[in-house]
């Protein structure tokens, strides 16, 4: 099973101008923030924010780093994503079986429910599961260059990470807006 930090470091090393959307505790572990970056603190809604970004900016890949507990709160988003089918969306779910922030509480259905199968049943065709960082890295390398939407289940160990970003919520929002606006004008 992967460590969350090594997954996030892999994403950071392999991406350049993609829009990265970590959700809740997936923010922990970024050594520096990418240029196109949005930390989603609306529990459950990272996949939907990422969908909006993907529709607005079809020229860029959008990678959402979701949590399994978070996605359980917005399962309908799988259906909406499948229905709209943005080819530039990669939905990575870090599955540790926990709601980590409130105290590492096991999520319902841990070990029973399959988010990958839910994504498949929702109509998403590109489904990938990774347990090891090497496989994840090789998979991501491919997925960054093929059409999606893509659903990735990444099994990760529970674990702490570094602290929270120093920017404010509004600051992070404006940072992404300004970066995308500047890129449009370039």
């Amino acid at each position, binding site marked *: 099973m992967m460590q969350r930090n090594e997954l996030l470091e892999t994403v950071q090393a392999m991406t350049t101008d993609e829009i990265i959307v970590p959700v809740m505790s997936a923010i922990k572990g970024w050594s520096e923030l990418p240029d196109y970056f949005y930390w989603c603190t609306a529990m459950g809604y990272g996949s*939907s924010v990422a969908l*909006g970004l993907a*529709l*607005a*900016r079809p020229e860029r890949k959008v990678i959402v780093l979701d949590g399994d507990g978070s996605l359980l709160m917005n399962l309908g988003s799988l259906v*909406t994503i499948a229905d709209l089918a943005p080819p530039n969306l990669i939905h990575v779910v870090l599955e540790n079986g926990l709601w980590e922030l409130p105290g590492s509480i096991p999520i319902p259905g841990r070990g029973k429910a399959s988010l990958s199968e839910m994504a498949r049943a929702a109509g998403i065709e590109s489904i990938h599961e990774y347990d090891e960082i090497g496989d994840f890295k090789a998979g991501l390398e491919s997925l960054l260059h093929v059409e999606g939407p893509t659903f990735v289940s990444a099994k990760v160990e529970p674990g702490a990470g570094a602290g929270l970003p120093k920017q404010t919520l509004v600051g992070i*929002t404006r940072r992404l807006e300004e970066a*995308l606006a500047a890129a*449009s004008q370039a």
Partner: protein
Amino acid sequence: MDLADRGQMIVDQLKRYGVEYIVWLPDSETNFINAAMESDPALNIIKCCSEGEALAIVAGLHMGGKGAVVLIENNGLFDAGNALRWVADSRFPLVLLVGYISYRYMTETPEGRIWSDAYWPGVRDLTEPFIKAFDIPYYLIDSDEDTKLIGEAFEEARSRSGPVIALLTSADGYVAGT
């Protein structure tokens, strides 16, 4: 004027203020807008599965540089409380179109409109206090003349750098028995 014409007036206002996307769930109160918005090739109409999802999609569209509104029902706004809190905290300058179910049950009296019995008194009694609890300004769009207030909602959202709600009713177009 036919209520469908008011729907067109609302759509015209949205386009005037740069809206390209309407993210919605069906709402009984505002179905008079459906024909106008769905027949307009300049608008992208996105259906989703929950009102919180709608708010989040619109936020993403906005950050990506696209003009977007939600069109949802007040019942759904209650359901999307945490997402609404996040939209307000993040200061997204969004206009949220919200159908005001239960408003049609107001009755005219010499003293003005009063509430009469409604199917969902909680919906009737809590819609505006709910919105006020989030410190979000709102406008009541209750007539053809009121549709110009949608423009004011957009102006206020920009000036305050935060969300503004337009509560839409079909009260004066209400037909008994429907």
